[in-house]
Protein backbone atom coordinates (compact mmCIF):
# COMPACT_ATOMS: atom_id res chain seq x y z
CA UNK A 1 0.00 0.00 0.00
CA UNK A 2 1.28 3.45 -0.89
CA UNK A 3 2.11 5.68 2.09
CA UNK A 4 1.86 9.37 1.28
CA UNK A 5 2.16 10.62 4.84
CA UNK A 6 4.48 13.63 5.00
CA UNK A 7 5.22 13.46 1.27
CA UNK A 8 4.98 16.46 -1.01
CA UNK A 9 2.69 15.48 -3.84
CA UNK A 10 2.72 16.94 -7.32
CA UNK A 11 -0.78 16.49 -8.73
CA UNK A 12 -1.01 16.45 -12.52
CA UNK A 13 -4.73 16.17 -13.22
CA UNK A 14 -6.39 15.93 -16.60
CA UNK A 15 -9.44 17.85 -17.73
CA UNK A 16 -10.70 14.79 -19.61
CA UNK A 17 -9.73 12.36 -16.86
CA UNK A 18 -9.47 13.16 -13.17
CA UNK A 19 -8.98 16.91 -12.59
CA UNK A 20 -6.53 18.22 -9.98
CA UNK A 21 -9.14 19.33 -7.41
CA UNK A 22 -10.75 15.85 -7.39
CA UNK A 23 -7.36 14.26 -6.68
CA UNK A 24 -6.72 16.82 -3.92
CA UNK A 25 -10.01 15.87 -2.32
CA UNK A 26 -9.04 12.20 -2.43
CA UNK A 27 -5.69 12.83 -0.73
CA UNK A 28 -7.07 14.87 2.19
CA UNK A 29 -6.93 12.03 4.73
CA UNK A 30 -3.69 10.46 3.54
CA UNK A 31 -1.33 12.87 5.32
CA UNK A 32 0.11 14.03 2.00
CA UNK A 33 1.22 17.64 1.63
CA UNK A 34 0.04 19.22 -1.62
CA UNK A 35 3.17 20.58 -3.33
CA UNK A 36 1.12 21.81 -6.23
CA UNK A 37 -1.99 20.77 -8.07
CA UNK A 38 -2.79 21.40 -11.69
CA UNK A 39 -5.13 20.21 -14.40
CA UNK A 40 -3.67 19.68 -17.85
CA UNK A 41 -5.63 19.87 -21.06
CA UNK A 42 -4.36 17.64 -23.83
CA UNK A 43 -6.71 18.93 -26.52
Amino acid at each position, binding site marked *: *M*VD*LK*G*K*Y*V*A*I*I*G*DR*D*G*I*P*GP*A*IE*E*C*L*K*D*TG*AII*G*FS*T*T*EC*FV
Partner: protein
Amino acid sequence: MDMENQTRVLELVEKHGKENVVVILGGAEAEASGLAAETVTTGDPTFAGPLTGVQLELPVYHIFELKDIIPEDVWEEQISMMEMVLDVDAIIKEVATYRERIGG
Protein backbone atom coordinates in the same frame (compact mmCIF):
# COMPACT_ATOMS: atom_id res chain seq x y z
CA MET B 1 3.64 17.04 -19.64
CA ASP B 2 3.60 20.73 -20.37
CA MET B 3 6.65 22.91 -19.75
CA GLU B 4 5.18 24.78 -16.81
CA ASN B 5 4.38 21.61 -14.91
CA GLN B 6 7.83 20.19 -15.59
CA THR B 7 9.27 23.34 -14.04
CA ARG B 8 6.98 23.02 -11.02
CA VAL B 9 7.99 19.38 -10.45
CA LEU B 10 11.64 20.33 -10.70
CA GLU B 11 11.20 23.20 -8.23
CA LEU B 12 9.39 20.93 -5.78
CA VAL B 13 12.24 18.42 -5.92
CA GLU B 14 14.87 21.12 -5.50
CA LYS B 15 13.03 22.50 -2.48
CA HIS B 16 12.14 19.30 -0.63
CA GLY B 17 14.42 16.59 -2.02
CA LYS B 18 13.33 13.85 -4.39
CA GLU B 19 12.93 11.34 -1.57
CA ASN B 20 10.06 13.48 -0.28
CA VAL B 21 8.17 14.02 -3.54
CA VAL B 22 5.50 11.79 -5.10
CA VAL B 23 3.71 12.50 -8.38
CA ILE B 24 0.02 11.65 -8.73
CA LEU B 25 -1.53 11.59 -12.20
CA GLY B 26 -5.14 11.91 -13.32
CA GLY B 27 -4.66 11.25 -17.03
CA ALA B 28 -7.55 10.02 -19.15
CA GLU B 29 -5.46 7.83 -21.44
CA ALA B 30 -2.75 5.24 -20.95
CA GLU B 31 -0.40 6.84 -23.47
CA ALA B 32 -0.55 10.37 -22.02
CA SER B 33 -0.26 9.01 -18.48
CA GLY B 34 2.74 6.95 -19.53
CA LEU B 35 4.43 9.99 -21.06
CA ALA B 36 3.93 11.96 -17.86
CA ALA B 37 5.27 9.03 -15.80
CA GLU B 38 8.28 8.76 -18.09
CA THR B 39 8.93 12.50 -17.77
CA VAL B 40 9.22 12.38 -13.97
CA THR B 41 11.26 9.15 -13.87
CA THR B 42 13.73 9.03 -16.75
CA GLY B 43 13.25 12.51 -18.26
CA ASP B 44 11.12 14.29 -20.85
CA PRO B 45 10.78 11.92 -23.85
CA THR B 46 9.82 14.80 -26.14
CA PHE B 47 13.15 16.57 -25.45
CA ALA B 48 11.28 19.85 -25.18
CA GLY B 49 10.98 20.70 -21.51
CA PRO B 50 13.19 21.42 -18.51
CA LEU B 51 13.19 17.73 -17.51
CA THR B 52 14.93 16.68 -20.71
CA GLY B 53 17.84 14.48 -19.69
CA VAL B 54 16.92 14.87 -16.01
CA GLN B 55 16.36 11.54 -14.29
CA LEU B 56 14.33 12.46 -11.26
CA GLU B 57 13.26 8.83 -10.67
CA LEU B 58 10.26 10.01 -8.68
CA PRO B 59 7.64 7.57 -7.44
CA VAL B 60 4.65 8.14 -9.73
CA TYR B 61 1.14 6.75 -9.45
CA HIS B 62 -2.13 7.20 -11.25
CA ILE B 63 -4.94 8.06 -8.85
CA PHE B 64 -6.63 4.80 -9.95
CA GLU B 65 -3.81 2.92 -8.20
CA LEU B 66 -4.55 4.57 -4.86
CA LYS B 67 -8.12 3.36 -4.37
CA ASP B 68 -7.08 1.36 -1.26
CA ILE B 69 -5.99 4.44 0.67
CA ILE B 70 -8.88 6.75 -0.23
CA PRO B 71 -12.11 6.78 1.80
CA GLU B 72 -14.90 5.00 -0.08
CA ASP B 73 -17.34 7.91 0.01
CA VAL B 74 -14.73 10.34 -1.36
CA TRP B 75 -13.84 7.86 -4.10
CA GLU B 76 -17.51 7.49 -5.02
CA GLU B 77 -17.97 11.24 -5.24
CA GLN B 78 -14.74 12.19 -7.02
CA ILE B 79 -13.51 9.23 -9.05
CA SER B 80 -16.05 6.46 -9.59
CA MET B 81 -17.72 8.06 -12.60
CA MET B 82 -14.47 8.29 -14.57
CA GLU B 83 -13.43 4.86 -13.30
CA MET B 84 -16.39 3.47 -15.24
CA VAL B 85 -15.59 5.14 -18.55
CA LEU B 86 -11.80 5.07 -18.73
CA ASP B 87 -9.56 2.09 -19.45
CA VAL B 88 -8.30 1.73 -15.87
CA ASP B 89 -6.27 -1.45 -16.43
CA ALA B 90 -4.38 -0.04 -19.41
CA ILE B 91 -3.62 3.22 -17.59
CA ILE B 92 -2.35 1.44 -14.47
CA LYS B 93 -0.24 -0.95 -16.52
CA GLU B 94 1.39 1.88 -18.46
CA VAL B 95 2.22 4.01 -15.40
CA ALA B 96 3.51 0.97 -13.48
CA THR B 97 5.88 0.18 -16.36
CA TYR B 98 7.85 3.36 -15.74
CA ARG B 99 7.79 2.95 -11.98
CA GLU B 100 9.20 -0.55 -12.33
CA ARG B 101 12.00 0.74 -14.55
CA ILE B 102 13.33 2.72 -11.63
CA GLY B 103 12.86 -0.18 -9.26
CA GLY B 104 9.73 1.17 -7.58
